[in-house]
């Protein structure tokens, strides 16, 4: 029994964190907001250079063959940085979905996965049940669901309609396309399984980013609580302000266990991964929403401005809170496991 990450995993997290803090600054994110695509080929190239686009690509296609447990800490850092580029969905959802296709699609996998690893191609993936696909405009290949089918559709075969989000970093598109036999890569039970697993990975990646965002918002608010002085003192010296932040710290601390437990469950395909993922997703959401609320409160009127960087992370948290399953869905999955399926509970039943 060892519920901790190894030194390689922690070192990788440190490296990615340093890179993102230096390269994905709030200034750079604001520049991206002004650009046409909202995305930056140069930044993606830097991610490629760090090896991040090869992480979850299986080794036979030129990748590193790592899984959800290796990626979860990096996803947290992507959240912390507010990285607009769709690294988490690409690596944790789209790549494994493509890699899990049957042998009949060996050619397709071979064509695309190696190029993704090398940074020559990009993927977008639909969230089951969400009519909008994020980052479809910069993808070369879209993985879409249609009824009980999965399709792999080149971008030139679709028409995209942009939908603006509260978070200007998000690039959301309606995808207009005509499903055909040529693009169908899985159907029926197989497709349902693939999409089900993709959903768990998507919700896990979302939870990890939300937890990173929560930490970032606390850090910003704590910094501000030193700068801003009232009654002759930094506002952070007042107990009422301290307790706003402490309450978020408690939520963050106790969302880590569920998040890493879920990453392990997904990485090992455990039978209970839905329960673990939903727990992680709810716990991370609650931490992020409370962080947003208490961070804007700590910033006072400045928190309500466009100028202060809090908005970059707060809006992202509000947006991510609703994707890859809303609270109702995740709570229903937990209730079912707990009350209807009679899962063993009590001391000694956690692992």
């Amino acid at each position, binding site marked *: 029994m060892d519920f901790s990450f190894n030194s390689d995993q922690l070192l990788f997290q440190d490296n990615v964190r340093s890179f993102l803090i230096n390269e994905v600054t709030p200034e750079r994110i604001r520049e991206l907001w002004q650009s046409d695509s909202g995305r930056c080929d140069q930044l993606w190239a830097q991610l490629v250079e760090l090896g991040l686009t090869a992480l979850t690509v299986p080794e036979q296609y030129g990748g590193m063959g790592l899984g959800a447990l290796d990626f979860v800490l990096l996803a947290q850092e992507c959240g912390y940085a507010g990285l607009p580029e769709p690294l988490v969905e690409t690596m944790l959802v789209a790549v494994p979905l493509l890699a899990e296709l049957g042998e009949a699609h060996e050619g397709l996998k071979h064509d695309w996965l190696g190029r993704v690893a090398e940074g020559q191609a990009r993927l977008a993936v639909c969230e089951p049940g969400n009519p909008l696909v994020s980052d479809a405009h910069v993808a070369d290949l879209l993985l879409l669901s249609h009824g009980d089918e999965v399709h792999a559709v080149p971008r030139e075969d679709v028409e995209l309609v942009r939908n603006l989000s509260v978070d200007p970093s998000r690039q959301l598109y309606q995808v207009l396309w005509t499903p055909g036999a040529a693009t169908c890569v899985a159907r029926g039970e197989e497709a349902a399984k693939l999409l089900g697993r993709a959903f768990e990975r998507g919700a896990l990646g979302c939870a990890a980013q939300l937890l990173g965002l929560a930490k970032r918002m606390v850090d910003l608010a704590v910094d501000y609580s030193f700068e801003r002085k009232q009654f002759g003192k930094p506002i952070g010296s007042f107990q009422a302000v301290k307790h706003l932040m402490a309450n978020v710290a408690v939520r963050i601390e106790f969302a880590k266990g569920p998040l890493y437990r879920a990453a392990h469950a997904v990485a090992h395909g455990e039978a209970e991964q839905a329960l673990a993922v939903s727990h992680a997703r709810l716990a991370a959401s609650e931490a992020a929403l409370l962080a947003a609320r208490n961070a804007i409160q700590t910033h006072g009127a400045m928190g309500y401005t466009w100028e202060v960087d809090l908005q970059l992370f707060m809006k992202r948290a509000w947006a991510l809170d609703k994707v890859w399953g809303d609270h109702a869905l995740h*709570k229903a999955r937990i209730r079912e496991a707990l009350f209807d399926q009679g899962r063993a509970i009590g001391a000694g039943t956690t692992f």
Partner: protein
Amino acid sequence: MDLTYTCAQQEFRAEVRAWLQANVPAEALPSFDTEEGFAAHRAWEARLNEGRWGMVTWPTRLGGRGCDLIEWLIFEEEYYRAGAPARVNQNGIFLLGPTLMEYGTEEQKARFLPRMATGQDIWAQGWSEPGAGSDMAAIRSRAERDGDHYVINGQKTWSTRAVWADWVFGIFRTDPGSQRHHGLTFILVPLNTPGITVRPIPQLNGLPGFAEIFFDDVRVPVENVLGGEGMGWHVAMSTAGFERGLMLRSPARFQETARRLVQLYQANRETADRDPAIGEAVMRAWLDAEAYTQSTYMTASQLVKGGRIGPESSTNKIFWSELDLRMHETAMSILGLRGELLPEAPAAGDVGQWLDGFLFAQAGPIYAGTNEIQRNIIAERMLGMPRA
């Protein structure tokens, strides 16, 4: 990361389970806040010790098993699962014991630890004073050096278990000119020393779970000082660290409460579901108890690998105490009209110990450093916010 138990850990669990099955009293002992219950719990400590199950994390030469923290978690899971008696000497074995091992002389360890292990010496704590609660550094009780003795005068309060305990540990001001956390000394005092008056304080349930202790020219030999004169604050912080840390609040305790809460809900679902908030609260209780368990396993895994507990451990107390409160509030909501009834009331039915637990849960956010103080600690030491 490896979330499976090793063969040795599984065998250990089986051994604990088997011993507890054979030894845990079939009928619950009376509360250890009664004289009869205190004696019964003392006897249980002796029985645990005979099986070498009293202090599994203690070294084998002291009657323990040298268990690491993962094995300790396994032991605790089995202990709570078996419904074994509460630990009447928890102030001794979980707080003072580790502190003695860290700061005690060899003579002190030999003198105190074996008797603590067998339950011959039950320990009370003496931190708070009428004027020193959250502000513990405001301690005024004095211990003045007189030859090879200290002479103690003053008053301690909220001393848990002091009514029937044998010893009290606490900090006293040995430097009369000192201020705040300077000039304090950690001293071990036999409660039968002349000059000591113990006045029981009935708790919410009417039982004397804590007491005031009055010291009137109480003479204690200098060899009862732990960690050296003037080191009291430092030693006490280490003890409080154990208290706030892992050892005292087993996740298993909250997991078992959550399990009983789920059962209570399932058995009363027709009435409970009239308020959808109840099912939600029950689900949340289970999730939070799991999160607390996972967090403890993460900390234990770090420590087993040689890491240290960081300032983030100060989030623990808030989390478990608020969880415990919410769980019992939810149980009371499910019980409805029966919630106010004592178990012996003819109409009580199967209300069990929920009311007792509900009353006890009120204390969680207060003792061992109020949750307000904990939030200050989190803000200042973990998040680095400016001090007041």
